């Protein structure tokens, strides 16, 4: 890492933090993730002057490509998906000089030898200095073979020595339950030390998610109210309009609780509920997040609808288009009981949040795509205006993660006129209105943080395992419950009635995000 003081000319530039050049090896280089996110992200970083000079990228996959064919395919991908598109030829020309391809299968030792040789050429010719980042853009079933082969080929340096760094980036799903997550972690840490592993949850790369920390800990007014004394409850919604698209094979074995709740939603819960870290440093932040996950109250035995509701969409219409039932989607079992919707009431048993319910919901084929957190405050302690027939509403602080990112605060105001009438009004902050420019893609930020060696925005092993430990009993209960089907809801609605009742029983209702 080049500290600003070590290159005095970097001081004050937006690109104050530029990592040392390295060799990034992407396993699964012909896949969707590489084409849509990784290469376009790396190119946009290069365009903005955030990639170090001499950065090398080696793609590895089974597809037959020469270096030039790989470059051409990646240029097409960048033209389609990069934030900085269309591709700028002058920048691309320089960027592509560091782009290489090695064809081979993941279990072929010769392929690793070829990768090793190419990486050593990058050390010699492009100043990679022996620094390696392995991006495992492959299915988890390949993690074991790739990491074993890397170790066997002596391509992993021990971070306890003075040798140049080796880092590994892995993608979710980090297992499908606690046992498989532990197994996966065992495999990964057999080759890499924990501090070499960067587990990507792309939600953490989003500007608005990072802004949660700034909102809470960078302002003086919110934190004093951020507790059970002032907060009545919290709602978190991750809604998608899409169905399973071409992921039916994966989704049939996972469901939305595994796909969204266990990772993205619990990451949001931990950021909303965590205590202030002692410093803004990777382990200090993650220690506090883990404490929240450890304080999550266990689910009661049995799949009780008063605590958690699973749903599945049936025929309906989304955004004016007819939509088929989940069970009629291609490659889906016609009797499938997989959850495409999950809602749950969660408690965090600690001093700050005792008895404050967190209502979580995630669903597919919802009316609109939105990720939203709302903090519902308690109403005023004394109904001063009651005699005038004035209805007091609770204040709500809403944090919109995507799209139309922003924050709004709802409060009551007197309606102008001779009588005392009130109406709820909102104060709004929107990123697009205030800051205009589009924020960088989550992957750009996360790739850069890996190169810089900062793991604050990545999930740590204990975070992943603690999250599984908490949700596993519920998932097992749902899977073993063969008597009850999921609650059905029409595509294009906000979920099944049972999810509404989850809040109605507490005298509350879902906020319409």
């Amino acid at each position, binding site marked *: 890492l*080049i500290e600003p003081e*070590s*290159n*005095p*000319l*970097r*001081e*004050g*530039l937006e*690109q104050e933090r*530029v990592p*040392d*050049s390295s060799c990034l090896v992407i396993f699964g280089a012909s896949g969707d993730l590489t084409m849509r996110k990784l290469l376009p992200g790396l190119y946009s970083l290069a*365009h903005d*002057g955030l990639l*170090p*000079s*001499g950065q090398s990228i080696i793609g590895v996959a089974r597809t037959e490509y020469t270096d030039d064919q790989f470059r051409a395919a990646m240029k097409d991908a960048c033209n389609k998906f990069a934030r900085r598109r269309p591709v*700028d*030829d*002058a*920048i691309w*020309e*320089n960027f592509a000089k560091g782009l290489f391809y090695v064809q081979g299968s993941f279990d072929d030792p010769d392929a690793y030898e070829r990768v090793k040789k190419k990486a050593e050429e990058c050390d010699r010719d*492009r*100043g990679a200095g022996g620094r390696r980042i392995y991006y495992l853009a492959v299915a988890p079933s390949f993690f074991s073979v790739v990491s074993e082969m890397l170790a066997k080929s002596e391509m992993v340096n021990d971070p306890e020595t003075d040798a140049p760094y080796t880092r590994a980036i892995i993608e979710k799903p980090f297992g499908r339950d606690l046992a498989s997550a532990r197994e996966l972690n065992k495999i990964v840490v057999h080759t890499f030390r924990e501090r070499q592993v960067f587990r990507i949850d792309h939600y953490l790369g989003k500007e608005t998610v990072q802004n949660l920390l700034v909102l809470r800990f960078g302002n003086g007014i919110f934190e004093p109210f951020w507790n059970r004394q002032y907060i009545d409850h919290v709602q978190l919604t991750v809604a998608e309009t899409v169905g399973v698209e071409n992921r039916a094979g994966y989704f049939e074995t996972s469901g939305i609780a595994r796909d969204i709740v266990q990772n993205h939603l619990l990451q949001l819960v931990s950021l909303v509920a965590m205590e202030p870290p002692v410093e803004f440093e990777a382990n200090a932040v993650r220690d506090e997040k883990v404490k929240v996950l450890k304080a999550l109250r266990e689910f009661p035995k049995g799949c009780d609808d008063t605590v958690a509701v699973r749903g599945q969409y049936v025929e309906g219409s989304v955004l004016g288009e007819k939509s088929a039932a989940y069970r009629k989607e291609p490659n889906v079992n016609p009797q499938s009981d997989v959850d495409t919707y999950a809602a749950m009431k969660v408690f965090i048993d600690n001093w700050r949040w005792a008895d404050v319910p967190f209502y979580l919901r995630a669903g597919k084929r919802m009316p609109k795509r939105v990720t939203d957190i709302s903090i519902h405050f308690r109403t005023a302690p004394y109904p001063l205006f009651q005699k005038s027939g004035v209805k007091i509403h609770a204040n709500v602080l809403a944090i919109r993660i995507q799209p*139309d990112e922003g924050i709004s605060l709802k409060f009551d105001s007197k309606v102008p006129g001779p009588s005392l009438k009130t109406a709820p009004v909102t104060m*709004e902050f*929107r990123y*697009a*209105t*205030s*800051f*205009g*420019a589009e924020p960088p893609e989550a992957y750009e930020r996360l790739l850069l943080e890996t190169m810089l060696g900062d793991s604050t925005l990545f999930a740590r092993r204990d975070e992943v395992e603690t999250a599984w430990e908490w949700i596993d009993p519920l998932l097992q209960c749902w899977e073993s419950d063969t008597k009850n089907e999921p609650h059905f809801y029409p595509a294009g609605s906000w979920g099944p009635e049972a999810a509404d009742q989850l809040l109605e029983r507490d005298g509350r209702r879902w906020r319409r995000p």
Partner: protein
Amino acid sequence: LKAGEAERATAGEDVAVDYSTIEKSLAQLWRSENEQAEGAVIRAALWNVVAHTSSPALQTHAAETLSKAAVLVPQRTIVIRSEPDSQSEMTAWISANCHMLGGKKQVCSEEVTIVAGGDHIHQVAPLVSALLLPDMPVAMWWVGDLPNEHEAYIETLLESADRLIVDSSYFDRAADFALVARIARQTATAPADLNWVRLEEWRMATAALFDPANVRARLRGIRKVSITAVAGENAFGDATEAFLYAAWLSAQLGHNVSDEGKVEGAAGPIGHELRVEKRDQRSGSLAEIAILFDDGSTATLLRDEDRQVINTSIDGATQTFDLVTRMQSRRIDDLIVRQLKRVHADPVFMKVLPIVSRIAGGFAA
């Protein structure tokens, strides 16, 4: 406002108002607009931007520039035209800069224009002060060269300003830099220079060249810096970007710069060579930089006008890479936006300011 004037104002047209009721007219404008658009209009402001101009041409230039900038940095814009030699009177107009957000809502910023002549120019500062949005920072954009003899007038206008934005390419003498440096030193207003923003791509390209540790070591052995700028109409102004570059290198590398502009580094005196040449390129901007080291090697930064990039290379025994840095837009509204996106004063520019006036003074002498 009379019937139809609110619509004309939100369509970007200037509507004449009495200068004593500007705020009231603006409130009326938004009330009327909200009634008609049923809440689909959002007013937004992150800054108060006050543009000071001294001629109708500069006033038009400032208004057009800030209406474009307001799309990316919402602001209350106040454009002043101050003409001490004109007839003593004061007039005001209001309008709105609106743009669609996501095809649904219209985001609008307000623009106020005040034209003052004769004695009325002394009423401008208190009027502007009353029109500033509370809790929003204030940027004063001084359009054109600084007035050489009216320092007190500038100071009055700057009383409520958090930032003074100048464009040193308009400067005609080293004392202009000295005045800006004095403002930085003696007032709470932080100066900023659009020419400094123009320099950012050259700073980026230079910094990237010295990222590898083995190349960075050569920074201690700089013996000579040759800068070529493109000549235009204003001989001093055309050289100011080059002065800023030289001052930046010295500020960041801890060189000793004497009052006469002589530069001394760790390895001895450092020569500066500045050429302002006629070229088929935009005047005032840098065209080429060569940094000579004590081992005989040279770092070169060369602007490629056709491809709009800066190509960078360095020779010598150690391994290096050619670099390409994308040149950024030099449109004034983009420079203003980049300046306003910076929430706080630029500490590096503050370090550079006292040095640049000495370097510029040395060259001028």
